[in-house]
């Protein structure tokens, strides 16, 4: 058998549904699109004969008018919907697709969520036979809409397709029922002449019945490379919460702290169930028989669920054996928080990421709220776009490529002119607007998908293993090769090995002068553009500042708690004084690029490091009472000083008061009066000396009382924040066996100044056959049968080892980080078994900013 290739496996899965795709309108939802972007599926869908590849969330009746052959001989008859969500969530969109195209006779729905997954989901209305139930439901709803249309036959003179209906603005379908139109389909009217005689035998009294097929399509995930994958950000699996809200939980998108207590059946979060379903079906699709191991409470539940799904049938087949190790992200929160030397992580953190589709959340039925829907994880999509607008600069006005944005906007204005009812005035001057970055980004057309692997190009795989310096040199090498291939010469000045951003930029400019060359080399060009964004200011300095601060914290964590607390105070103070410094002098320094939110992330890192190095008690946290009080005071003061920059979840509800408090202060500063420098008491004294105006005195007292109340409220919130920090630092103390196991792994730490993550040490340990406390093996049904049977005869059975397999799968519940991927690849090559095939997956791809959002930001518990 060949080696494992996730991208090839995904493409093969699409080929297996080629019969459905041929001549069909293919509708993809946002999560499926992200997954298909990663594998470069667009050319394959065309090759399989897709009539059009459209957006499920923004379906339009005009989609049916698309045809690659321009024969327009017959209307569209088939649609294929591929969704990464529950059928109940996708239903209204599927129904709208059917309503938009009255000529559809067959609808195939492929969903990433299995049938058992649908019935197990708390919010799902379907039972164990979910797919058949949905087929019935969709057919009935379709016929209901058909009847509704037939009742309005008296309006048949009305044109059903006005220009307004064809807008692709999803917001227009907020009242989507009224937006569904049925054309006068001759198939639906048996009394009229039947132009499709060959299908007349299938006609029924009220028209041809819609044929619906629902199938499970498990291979909807996002491979970053052939052996690294994550789940789609806007799919149900990644969006379902991994933790219910309780004292041990940190975020809905992260598993809770492992305490050893088992989950009750009713308490299993939906994300856990769906993850088990996914891993089970992934192994089945890859034709792998799994030996399952887990590390962490949530991972243990997933392993158990997977075992419950297995059957005797699995054992008999000639499947390839693989080891699956499921790990809780919470066991190692430091690695994804660190700004380590991973070039991919750096680029991911610098590129702008769009907001996800929010319409799914709105669609939740408000009449029946449930705790699970409230805790849905909002993950920023990984469909990261690299803008190519830089290539079309005005510096080369004679280049025909520089005219491209203008031409595109002219076409779009013509395309949209049907929506404008009033007479169109002469075209605005696109020449200037075309080069306005803001306007161009609104179009969002001149870009490429950053995390994408298309035919023959494996740049991401190589970059995963590189730090910033090596990555830059590698991109330069690729650009040089591309220039040679295009027969362009580039003067290589300076040292041969050195690589600078301006050098990359010049090479990109040369490759982009011709549009054909630009398209041919788009992979390496967008890597160079992404590298340029990552290494320019202020992203570069911010990253360096983070790296420096984290190194200081790591070194200090080997000393005393007092030193660590002192460093944290300095960081918070630095962020405070830098803002004052900015306002005064408008100068920037390297250290000053960390904002208050950045420093909060550093504080999280500090508490985790303290928990690892100073395991004292649980209740009070790792720091002394005095140190923690001073830390809290600084945090409170920082929040009160700069409320406009604070957008944190634990301050929800206080934004207005904080904003109001900032306004008078700014007024005082603008007045630049001498009173501002005096203390409040002095101000009060002066106020009293103005006479016996009792009303003003009362107002002053009320204002003072309000300020004091706000400060008390902020302090209370900060106390809650520090309780969260205590949780972060107490992880090893909550489970003694697991804590000992994690501590024992420190023997694989080669250098105290270059720390390694948990996965690195874990893999080295298992490949060296060390026994790890807390690592649990989940025996299969047959294994249990054999064990119990053989046990009666007193025969022992040796415990399987994860490291014995030639194929290893590691799945991190909660997500993986690019630095971690690099470390894991290094672990395999460092170990005694470099021939092992390792697949690394996770719920999502995490950057340090993502970690902040999960714990304190928009994706955290409120």
């Amino acid at each position, binding site marked *: 058998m060949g080696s494992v290739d996730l991208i090839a496996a995904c493409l093969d899965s699409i080929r297996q549904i080629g019969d459905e795709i041929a001549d069909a309108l293919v509708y993809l939802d*946002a999560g499926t699109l992200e997954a298909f972007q990663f594998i470069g599926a667009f050319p394959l869908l065309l090759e399989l004969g897709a009539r059009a590849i459209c957006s499920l969330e923004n379906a339009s009746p005009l989609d049916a008018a698309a045809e*690659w052959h321009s024969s327009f001989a017959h209307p569209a008859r088939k649609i294929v919907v591929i969704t990464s969500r529950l059928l109940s969530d996708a239903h209204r969109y599927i129904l709208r697709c059917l309503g938009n195209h009255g000529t559809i006779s067959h609808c195939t729905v492929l969903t990433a969520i299995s049938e058992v997954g649908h019935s197990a989901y708390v919010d799902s209305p379907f039972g164990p036979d979910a797919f058949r139930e949905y087929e019935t439901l969709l057919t009935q709803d379709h016929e209901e809409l058909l009847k509704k249309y037939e009742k309005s036959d008296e309006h048949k003179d009305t044109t059903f397709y006005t220009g307004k209906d064809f807008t692709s603005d999803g917001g227009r379908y907020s009242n989507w029922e009224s937006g569904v139109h049925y054309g006068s389909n001759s198939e639906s009217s048996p009394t009229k002449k039947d132009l499709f005689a060959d299908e007349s035998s299938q006609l029924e009294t009220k028209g041809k019945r819609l044929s619906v097929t629902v199938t499970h399509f498990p291979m909807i995930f996002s491979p970053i490379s052939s052996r690294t994958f994550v789940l789609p950000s806007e799919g149900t699996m990644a969006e379902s919460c991994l933790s219910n809200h309780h004292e041990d939980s940190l975020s809905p998108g992260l598993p809770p702290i492992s305490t050893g207590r088992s989950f009750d059946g009713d308490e299993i979060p939906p994300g856990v169930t769906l993850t088990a379903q996914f891993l089970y079906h992934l192994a089945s699709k890859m034709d792998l028989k799994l030996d399952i191991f887990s590390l962490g409470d949530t991972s243990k539940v997933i392993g158990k669920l997977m075992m419950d799904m297995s059957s005797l049938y699995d054992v008999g087949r000639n499947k390839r054996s693989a080891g699956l190790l499921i790990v809780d992200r919470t066991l190692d929160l430091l690695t994804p928080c660190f700004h380590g030397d991973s070039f991919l992580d750096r680029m991911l953190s610098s590129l702008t990421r769009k907001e996800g589709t929010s319409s799914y959340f709105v669609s939740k039925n408000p009449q029946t709220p449930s705790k699970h829907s409230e805790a849905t994880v909002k993950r920023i999509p990984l469909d990261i776009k690299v803008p190519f607008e830089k290539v079309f600069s005005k510096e080369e006005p004679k280049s025909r490529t520089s005219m491209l944005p203008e031409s595109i906007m002219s*076409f779009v204005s013509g395309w949209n*002119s*049907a929506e404008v009812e009033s007479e169109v005035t002469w075209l605005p001057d696109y020449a200037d607007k075309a080069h306005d970055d803001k306007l161009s980004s609104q179009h*969002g057309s001149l870009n490429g998908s950053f995390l994408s692997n298309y035919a023959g190009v494996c740049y991401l795989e190589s970059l995963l293993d590189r730090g910033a310096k090596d990555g830059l040199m590698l991109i330069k090498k690729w650009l040089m090769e591309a220039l040679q291939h295009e027969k362009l010469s580039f003067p290589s000045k300076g040292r041969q090995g050195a690589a600078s951003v301006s050098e990359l930029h010049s090479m990109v400019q040369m490759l982009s002068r011709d549009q*054909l060359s630009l398209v041919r080399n788009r992979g390496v060009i967008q890597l160079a553009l992404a590298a340029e964004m990552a290494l320019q200011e202020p992203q570069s300095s911010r990253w360096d500042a983070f790296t420096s601060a984290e190194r200081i914290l790591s070194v200090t964590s080997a000393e005393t708690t007092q030193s660590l607390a002192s460093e944290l105070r300095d960081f918070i103070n630095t962020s405070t004084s830098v803002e004052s410094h900015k306002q005064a002098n408008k100068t920037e320094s390297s250290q000053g690029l960390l904002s208050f939110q950045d420093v909060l992330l550093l504080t999280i890192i500090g508490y985790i490091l303290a928990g690892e190095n100073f395991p004292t008690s649980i209740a009070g946290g790792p720091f002394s009472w005095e140190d923690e009080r001073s830390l809290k005071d600084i945090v409170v003061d920082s929040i009160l000083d700069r409320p406009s920059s604070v957008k944190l979840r634990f301050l929800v509800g206080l934004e207005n008061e904080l904003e109001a408090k900032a306004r008078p202060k700014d007024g005082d500063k603008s007045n630049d009066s001498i009173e501002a420098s005096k203390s409040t008491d002095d101000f009060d004294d002066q106020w009293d000396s103005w006479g016996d105006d009792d009303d003003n005195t009362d107002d002053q007292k009320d204002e003072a009382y309000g300020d004091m109340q706000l400060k008390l409220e902020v302090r209370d919130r900060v106390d809650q924040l520090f309780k969260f920090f205590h949780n972060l630092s107490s992880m090893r103390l909550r489970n003694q066996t697991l804590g000992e196991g994690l501590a024992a792994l420190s023997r694989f730490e080669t250098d105290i100044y270059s720390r390694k993550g948990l996965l690195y040490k874990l893999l080295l340990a298992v490949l060296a056959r060390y026994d790890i406390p807390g690592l649990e093996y989940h025996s299969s049904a047959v294994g249990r049968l054999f064990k119990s049977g053989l046990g009666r005869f007193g025969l022992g059975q040796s415990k399987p080892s994860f490291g014995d397999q030639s194929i290893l799968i590691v799945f991190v519940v909660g997500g993986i980080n690019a630095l971690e991927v690099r470390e894991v690849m290094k672990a395999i090559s460092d170990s005694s078994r470099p021939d092992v095939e390792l697949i690394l997956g996770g719920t999502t791809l995490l950057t340090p900013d993502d970690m902040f959002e999960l714990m304190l930001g928009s994706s955290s518990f409120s």
Partner: protein
Amino acid sequence: SQLRVYALQLMQCITGRNLKSLPNELVSQVEPWELWYEPGTGSSVADDNNSPSSSITGTLVALRSTQMITTVLPNANITPNNLGTLDSAVSCFLHLSESASSVETIAVMEAVLEEWEQLFSSKEEYVPPQESPKETNDWSDDWDDGWEALPEELESPTKKHGRTSLSVDPLHTCWMEIIRKLVELGEPHKVIELLDRASSRNSMLIEDDEANRLLELISAMEPLMALKIMLLLPYETTRLRCLQMVEAKMREGTVSTSSNADDHELLALVLSSGVLQRIVTEVEYSKLFSHICHLVGHLARSSQNDLLVKWNDEANAPGTSKTNKSLLFARVLFPSFISELVLRGQYLLAGFVISRWMHTHPSLGLMDVAEASVRRYLNGQIVQAQQLGGTDVFLTDNELSVSHALSTLRSNLVSLVQAALATLPNQDL
């Protein structure tokens, strides 16, 4: 008068030198008199050359012309002497046109001029044989060829296979007068129809100088209308002047676009004349190119709307003129536009336009889909063009004035698409 015309037509048949306008029943019933043909060859040619007015052909043409012109100009009279020389014919025509003040009158004068064309264009054929005795034999061969080709001409009178090279019409001065009249009457569309019909005959109605004067005459009108007229004439310098004029006016913002919303004709002429190649590649014409892109966007959306309505139409009636316009755009104009973009290196623009046309998921980046989309679309056009070998109804029944330009585009489409495909990179990338 009727009897006289009939007698002359009968005599024309007997001589064997038939004119296009002879009734078919006469031609089919009357056989040429061979005796007249054989001994009279030399003398007939001599007579025609020396004094065309005395020939039967000249008399017949003059009589028919008078017959037509008196329907709108009762006092007009055209004598065989008027048609004796090119100069006298031009003089006569210009004199008559002084009284022409309506579109109907000009239409009749167009018909008269087409009658005269036979007379003066056939005159050229007789000049070379007089040079040398050897040429006489060639002349005889030509005559035999003409004789054998007679049935073809009768079967399809609009198609003349005799000559393929372009030549200026001898009566270009008269045509210029007609065009000037139409412009003054505010009927530029009829000028377009006239020039398009002429191009189907490989004939140039006016000279280069006259084209320049025409440009000055119509530049005060709508610039885009002027551009359409100039694109129907093959004079490169005049085209360039017109392009520059249109571009300048567009930059000033003085070009009205309300009446150009559904301008299939402009797009067809820009494509068939080859001027798109210049517009795409030269930055000096960026405004005009933007307008073309806007036009393509508008027509693309409109044609898809029309096709969608047609599919859902209850009656499912045969294609109306509107539907035929949409099919024309979708099958001929749009593929031609895309192919030209690809050939001129506007690869990403072609990819973007195709993505919109195919309603590709808006979240897919242009860089990711451009290559596959362009290739898939161009391959699809070749498949479609090869399958539909029959008659294209939408080419003729669409109310457009540039039918010949459209036919040219249609016949060249496959080779154009194949040329564009050849520029794509190897798929192994």
